[in-house]
């Protein structure tokens, strides 16, 4: 509610009051819980925390989380960039409808996503039964996890790349073509480098979301240690079985990943701004 007076005088009392109010809310709701979990995990000593992190099921779930997230990101980079490309550069019937529906995964509650996937790929469904007959288990196994992650993160890369593609002028591509470059050379040398910051932003957002994803995964994969138990499900299991100490280790690891993601996204933003200027 700063009055925006001309020229801005030194900070007024009401500025200070508003600022304190805003910061107190942020502090209570976000900073305090983070401090509390760090404090609690240091309370019993780092060796106990390390022991919690390195329990075999904990390590397995962390590995499973990172590997499935990584596979999802690789697929999303390709399909997301291709989707953005098709939506920006080409005309086809139903294009605006598809463009509008890209955000469906963002709007869907994760539990609904999980239920939907079970409805289509579960053992009681036609598709699920077909795959099961061929010895491929989608639900309650790793393909289900990747499928759920692909669904919930689908819009990230598309929506990151799309605006950059719209802004990108075709001049550079045409200049390269005039100079005799082939289509594939232009794509690799001209298009990809200018899309890279956007693709990485989408990839980082997808990866971060995948590391913490819970609702859809617990529906499609369940909670089977050494098979489908991802990190968030492991943490949930420990809390449910009244062993909060056991949940601390992986929680801290996930939290550190969250901080790294935020930092990485800030660096990317800085980089792409410089890229635009350059």
């Amino acid at each position, binding site marked *: 509610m700063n009055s925006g007076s001309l020229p801005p005088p030194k900070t007024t009392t009401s500025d200070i009051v508003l600022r304190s109010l805003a910061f107190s809310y942020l502090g209570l709701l976000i900073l305090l819980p983070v401090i*509390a979990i760090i404090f609690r995990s240091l309370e019993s000593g780092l060796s106990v925390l390390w022991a919690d992190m390195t329990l075999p099921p904990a390590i397995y779930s962390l590995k499973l989380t990172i590997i499935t997230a990584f596979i999802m990101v690789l697929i999303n980079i390709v399909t997301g960039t291709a989707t953005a490309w098709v939506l920006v550069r080409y005309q086809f019937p*139903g294009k605006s409808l598809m463009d509008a529906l890209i955000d469906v995964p963002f709007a869907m509650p994760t539990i609904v996503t999980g239920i939907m*996937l079970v409805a289509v790929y579960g053992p009681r469904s036609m598709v699920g039964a077909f795959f099961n007959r061929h010895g491929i288990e989608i639900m309650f196994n790793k393909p289900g996890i990747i499928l759920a992650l692909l669904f919930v993160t689908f819009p990230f890369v598309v929506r990151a790349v799309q605006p950059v593609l719209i802004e990108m002028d075709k001049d550079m591509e045409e200049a390269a073509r005039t100079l005799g470059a082939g289509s594939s050379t232009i794509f690799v040398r001209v298009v990809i480098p200018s899309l890279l910051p956007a693709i990485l932003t989408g990839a980082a957002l997808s990866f971060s979301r995948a590391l*913490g994803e819970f609702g859809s995964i617990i529906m499609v994969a369940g909670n089977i240690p050494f098979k489908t138990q991802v990190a968030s499900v492991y943490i949930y299991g420990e*809390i449910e079985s009244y062993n909060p100490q056991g949940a601390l280790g992986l929680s801290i690891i996930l939290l550190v990943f969250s901080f790294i993601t935020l930092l990485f996204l800030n660096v990317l933003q800085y980089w792409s701004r410089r890229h635009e200027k350059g």
Partner: protein
Amino acid sequence: MKKGNVAKNALIVMVVMWFFMLIMVPVFGIIQEVFKFGISNAVASLLTPHARHAFLLTVCITIAAVIINSVFGTLLAMVLVKQKFKGKLFIEGLLDLPFAVSPVVAGFMFIILFGPQGFIGNWFENQGIKIIYAVPGMIIATLFVTLPFVAREVMPVLREFGLEQEEAAYVLGASRWQTFLKVTIPSVKWGIIYGITLTVARAIGEFGAVIVVSGNIINRTQTVPLHIHQEFTDYNYGAAYSAALLLALVSFALLITLQTIYKKSEQS
């Protein structure tokens, strides 16, 4: 040229197929399941006392989250855009943290803080106030996951329009309060509405953070997503699919609202 067209059409077909298989087929899958269950059965399953309680609780928690976070979100946006102070990047990082943190970890942090053995929860417990495994904790968890929406939507709008018009109003002799009500709020109106719609969408669907702090007690602390999970684990698939479809329809309506708002705000 012809070769290029073939490649182009192949790419379009592949992209549309992928999108259809990944996103649209599951949406149709759930609709089909509800029809298999029967419309009258579906309606009946949505009217059981458990289901009705879950819907009521979800509505109450969502309203609380919308009111509190639109006030504090707008406030945070104004402080972050208009005031100059050190450590702004740190504050903005804190504001974005809920987007990056796993909902389960978020819920767990609130248990550590407000649980019976928690740092603050202990004191509340002695006063006879339950936060965790009760509705207050569920509201706090929902506030956490939805905090960035209004603030992040209002900030860019405020950056673009707010300041100049406010300065004009101030020069013309309007008081601070008048300026705020007549100039600031109308200029960020669409940002606030957009942020609120995102908040509603997230609040009605939040599962991880809420299930951790709620204790998942039937008829007491079950919201709609928790109710869906409960029905599913109890093998009441039809009831789970019905409630999920209803939640999906509401979410879809919110998505359309968002896109309409976006177009409107582009025009104005």
